[in-house]
């Protein structure tokens, strides 16, 4: 063992690494937002009256959950241009993260929706509210509250999964780290450092979710 640690390249690359963190957080937050939208929309379609829509959602969920994310992101990256949509790597990564996280979110949120007592829905209908309003105003918030821990876990996972976006050179921490490592060959120092940075970002996201939970889900229940 005559490997001497040299954090010089890491220290001089620190501003870039921090920008990489910002990139990762950006991917994570936009990916989560898209995933949440897909999750909620997917749950509505998953239980709609139109059979074709139900099958579409089920197939989508199965497809995403049974294939590797790396393959999905390459697929989005190389398949979209074939249908005329040309996105640069970062938006491509957001789309892929949103689709992937969305599929898992559908399953999680659906569990929450099913946990809502049917008396709640009936009370809404009896008051004259339409099905969509019943979902939006009566079912959704308690349903999200019920699955909040799983949803948080899934979204932390999504945050870490952003590193796979380095495969298409999206702007995020792992890509930045690869560049520094390529120039300096200081693999251990570079990856050791970003390990800690990912840990810190997970922690931040977790705290952010705790704050959101205080804001939206802290109503008292029996």
């Amino acid at each position, binding site marked *: 063992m005559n490997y001497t640690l040299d954090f010089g390249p890491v220290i001089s690359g620190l501003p870039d690494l921090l920008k990489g963190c910002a990139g990762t957080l950006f991917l994570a937050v936009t990916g989560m937002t898209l995933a949440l939208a897909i999750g909620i929309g997917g749950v509505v379609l998953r239980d709609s009256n139109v059979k074709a829509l139900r099958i579409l959602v089920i197939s989508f969920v199965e497809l995403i959950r049974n294939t590797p994310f790396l393959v999905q992101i390459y697929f989005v990256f190389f398949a979209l241009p074939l249908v005329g949509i040309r996105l640069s790597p970062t938006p491509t990564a957001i789309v892929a993260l949103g689709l992937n996280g969305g599929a898992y979110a559908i399953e999680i949120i659906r569990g929450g929706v099913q946990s809502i007592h049917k008396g709640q829905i*009936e*009370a809404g209908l*009896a*008051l*004259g509210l339409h099905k969509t*309003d019943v979902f939006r105003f*009566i079912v959704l918030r308690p349903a999200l509250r019920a699955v909040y821990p799983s949803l948080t876990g899934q979204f932390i996972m999504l945050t870490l999964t952003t590193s796979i976006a380095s495969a298409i050179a999206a702007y995020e921490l792992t890509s930045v780290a690869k560049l520094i490592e390529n120039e300096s060959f200081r693999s251990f120092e570079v990856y050791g450092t970003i390990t800690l940075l990912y840990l810190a970002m997970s922690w931040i996201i977790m705290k952010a979710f705790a704050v959101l939970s205080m804001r939206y889900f802290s*109503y008292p229940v029996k």
Partner: protein
Amino acid sequence: MPAQPERADPLITMEGVDKWYGEFHALRGVNIEVRRGEKIVLCGPSGSGKSTLIRCINHLEAVQKGRIVVDGISLDDSARAVDAVRREVGMVFQSFNLFPHMTVLQNCTLAPMRVRGLNQAEAEATARKYLERVRIGEQAAKYPAQLSGGQQQRVAIARALCMEPKVMLFDEPTSALDPEMVKEVLDTMIGLARDGMTMVCVTHEMGFARQVADRVIFMADGEILEEAAPETFFKNPQHPRARTFLGEILAHH
């Protein structure tokens, strides 16, 4: 609340209604007329179809046969008819079914805003009026879980009243309550009856029935077996099933 206008046509008509849950025949040839301002108490043994019957009135359940007309609107499964009927029919459930994530006030303003199109100020004014009326105005900012069962049920009544319905349906509104809270809810219902509300109540509170009901309807196995004024029904039930049922109820109370 304005008194119900004097109109001769019944507010609710059920004619030859049959309902099946799959193979199970839950309502058999039900005929009912409820006049405007009338108070009906519906009773019968467990599983006799009381809940099913009142849930057909606001189309929480669809029927396979027969005709249901509410306030001149024929419930024909069309979304328009269902919407129109639900606007005029309030319902109170055994398990309150308040929305846990909304304050008492928000529980009361949601439907008037979304369905009646009131703005927030109007909806809140209406809500406060009815919350006062069920004597719970000071709890408007609380969440359901912070209230007792009796208070929750009174909020549920106020919430339904905020839609200014023409008829109120009650499905065993006091059976989930601790005994000491039954009275506050019954008193609220008695007040409502005094003010002229048309009411269809599934309840086994025979004191309430005696005091308030114009008619008691007894059903068993999905059929209406007896219909009479409360004094007649309680003193001299005709049908043997009604006699057995009253015997059991009185033994419990």
